[in-house]
């Protein structure tokens, strides 16, 4: 069934990291990134460009990697959303990809890191043994202005090797 959402400020529910979250008295034009950060207390996804260029807001929506800034939050009702917070086993644990970023020096200012981590999780989920070209293509929608990408590519390779062990 389709859902009609009417009215200036509305309440709805979003399924994020396996839990239903109430979104109360939201403006309907809000994008998913804003709702995640400002209403649901999930600030892992970062806000930089708000136009799909930088990838720092990357999330998985129904298993597909997307920029959450380009998703109308109210249209995501019923979708399964996974943010960077949902990738590790527990609140104080790192996912294997996050651990590889730390170990390989793939993090400098850290702002782009959550987006990269989500993209790399998505890549390794679908392609456990990517070539370097495939890795570069998989992160081509994520911008980093600190590292020059070398340490990030090394981190992806390290995560890939760890998973194959």
């Amino acid at each position, binding site marked *: 069934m389709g859902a009609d959402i009417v009215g200036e400020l509305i309440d709805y529910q979003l399924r994020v990291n396996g839990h239903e979250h109430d979104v109360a008295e939201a403006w309907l034009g809000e994008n998913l990134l804003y709702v995640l950060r400002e209403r649901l207390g999930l600030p892992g996804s970062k806000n930089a460009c708000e136009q*799909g260029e930088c990838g720092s807001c990357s999330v998985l929506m129904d298993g597909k990697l997307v920029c959450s800034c*380009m998703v109308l939050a109210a249209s995501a009702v019923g979708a399964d959303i996974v943010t960077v917070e949902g990738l590790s086993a527990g609140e104080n644990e790192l996912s294997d990809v996050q651990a590889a970023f730390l170990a390989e020096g793939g993090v400098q200012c850290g702002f782009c890191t959550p987006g990269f981590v989500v993209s790399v999780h998505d890549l390794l989920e679908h392609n456990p043994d990517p070539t370097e070209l495939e890795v570069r*293509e998989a992160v081509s929608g994520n911008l980093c202005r600190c590292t020059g990408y070398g340490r990030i590519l090394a981190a992806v390779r390290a995560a890939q090797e760890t998973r194959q062990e």
Partner: protein
Amino acid sequence: MTVFVPACLEEAFDAFDKCPDAQLLAGGTDFMVEVNFALRRPPAVVCLRKVEELKGWRLEHAEVVLGAGITYAELMGPQLSDLLPGLAQASRTVGSPQIRNAGTLGGNLGTASPAGDSLPVLAALDARIVVASKKGRRSLGLDELIIGPKRTTLGPGEVIVEVRVPAALGSQEFLKVGTRNAMVIAVANVALVVDWAGQSVRCALGSVGPVVIRARDAEEFISSRIDWARRTLTDEGDVAEFTALVRSAARPIDDHRSTADYRRHAVGVCAQRALGRVLADHNGGTWEQTSWAS
């Protein structure tokens, strides 16, 4: 603002009955930028993400019928890239994985940007675009749907439903010029289709005019010069004439992305390379071995 999330076309049409000024939302990759930057605050949005009839694709005789909601990522899948290689090539040049997972073919048509990457391919394939409203359906050519930069002939309450293109037609190439490989809006893009059975070449140019341009003179000229039995050009000098005709078909402008002069140059180079690759493929070589396709 009202957001409708219909599950089928009938519900989408009902939404337009309630809010005739509603804005259609497909993948959101253009629309949400405008909302985020407060350039647009439409009274109502009809989100097409869940509309069942717009999903997927099917083969009908010799035609591929693409649901308007098909994403660029889906167009790059193994089966569709065999059936529609030019469209798969174009899809690969769009944005990033994130954008290709969200952006749709119907959205590219509805946005009607002069730089839309799928559009030259659809023009070169003589695609038919089916639009529907409560009143019924009609089928349009690309030049009947898109009539100016971001201007379409879609009527109130009309939704782009599907795109019909011939399956595995001849040889297809798509080339694009931009400042990097990912996340780039085309400075110029070109689609070339060579229909070996029909003995015709179709060449469409994007980002070099208010709408996609078919380089008809160039098409006719090169079609008359190809040795169709041997699938080759007898006089390689014809390539220069083909390129010149492509360049003169372009109607580019100077803007923040490039200059008219460069765009005219770039479409010529792209069309020449596309032709070189197609002919080389059919002579057992690689395109680099065709001396003029450099």
